[in-house]
């Protein structure tokens, strides 16, 4: 199998069968927050994709040198937070310098999109991967999985918050039940894949 088809097949598996939100449950509260508004979801999608992609590329280099260290799992969050922070400040500077309009639109919630379980969780899942191809596939597939999950929640957001839902279930509780049903569908896909 050539390199590109290998990367694409793992990325598709990561998006659907191992979805970061519905299967690994990383960043669920973030995706619920982002999915309240279409414009916010679009901005979150872009920010999370860029952060995960570039952080993964940097972490693949770091992991290569120190992943065999037996106590690496203890320092891993610190190492990854440093990498994420480097990407965060670089991206903030580039946006402030070259895209000031976009920067002023997202500056109130850009930190929420960067420092969350979805981003850190993606880097941790990447760490399971072997070799550059898998890092590349995960770094594309995991944020795309987040984006798909976000749009699935966005599509139902109005109905889940509508008056037709009983008051006790309206909003957060029914969103959890809805997410559970979608998660069941992803789980079935995963089981079938295996």
């Amino acid at each position: 199998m050539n390199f590109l088809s290998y990367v694409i097949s793992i990325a598709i598996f990561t998006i659907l069968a191992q979805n970061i939100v519905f299967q690994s449950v990383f960043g669920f509260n973030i995706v619920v927050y982002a999915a309240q508004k279409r414009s916010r979801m679009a901005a979150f999608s872009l920010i999370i994709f860029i952060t995960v992609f570039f952080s993964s590329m940097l972490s693949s280099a770091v992991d290569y040198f120190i992943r065999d260290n037996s106590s690496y799992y203890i320092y891993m969050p610190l190492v990854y937070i440093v990498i994420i922070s480097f990407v965060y400040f670089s991206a903030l500077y580039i946006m402030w310098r070259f895209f000031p309009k976009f920067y002023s639109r997202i500056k109130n919630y850009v930190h929420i999109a960067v420092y969350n379980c979805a981003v850190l969780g993606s880097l941790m899942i990447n760490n399971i991967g072997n070799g550059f191809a898998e890092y590349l596939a995960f770094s594309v597939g995991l944020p795309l999985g987040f984006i798909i999950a976000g749009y699935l929640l966005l599509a139902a957001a109005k109905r889940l918050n509508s008056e037709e839902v009983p008051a006790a279930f309206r909003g957060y509780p029914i969103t959890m039940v809805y997410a559970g049903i979608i998660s069941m569908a992803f789980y079935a896909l995963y089981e079938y894949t295996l």
Partner: protein
Amino acid sequence: MDNKKISVNLTDGLFRQNVVVSSGLAAFPVIAIVTTLKNAIVLSVGFTLITVLSVIVSSFISRKIIYAMRIALFSLVSSVIYIPVALFLRAVFPSVSVNLGMYLPILVVNSVILSKSESRFHHLSKAMMSFDVLIFCFGFSLAAMLVGAIREVVAYNTIFDYKINMNFEMASAAQPFFGFILIGCLSALTRLIIHKNNPKLSKEKK
């Protein structure tokens, strides 16, 4: 500099703003990994240690530093605090802490540390803040243990590894989708109880 003072109800963290069943700020590890009571206890200890220490230490970070920078510093502080906490959990609960896998390190970026600190904890006095964050962590632990106990009984017919004789066993209760649905139902139940005991809240909602 932000000198905003907020009035807080110290029982918020237990029910009204419970981070698992009311706001969902820290529901993700409970949905994913809390499938037994043992997991729930170890996760609760880890969550409490990381969150309480991180919130207290990060309260010393000057509010003159811009917000974008402060959030990065909060994350750095909690990931440094994670190191001794992970060593402690590994020593005290060797097998269960391994079960928690990557959900323990992920707690360094939980929203209670990053968002609640800014919106609530850091506006309180140090003593009040410590007590308030402890109550939030206690609320997390209560919810996690309830979910862990229910899932352990349904999925494995055991409680704390003691066998319970039941007619049905549903192994899929240990899967994330069951966690989502269970927490959704517990959330609705919590809301009902809160509103029943406090009719004022129901009127405010309307």
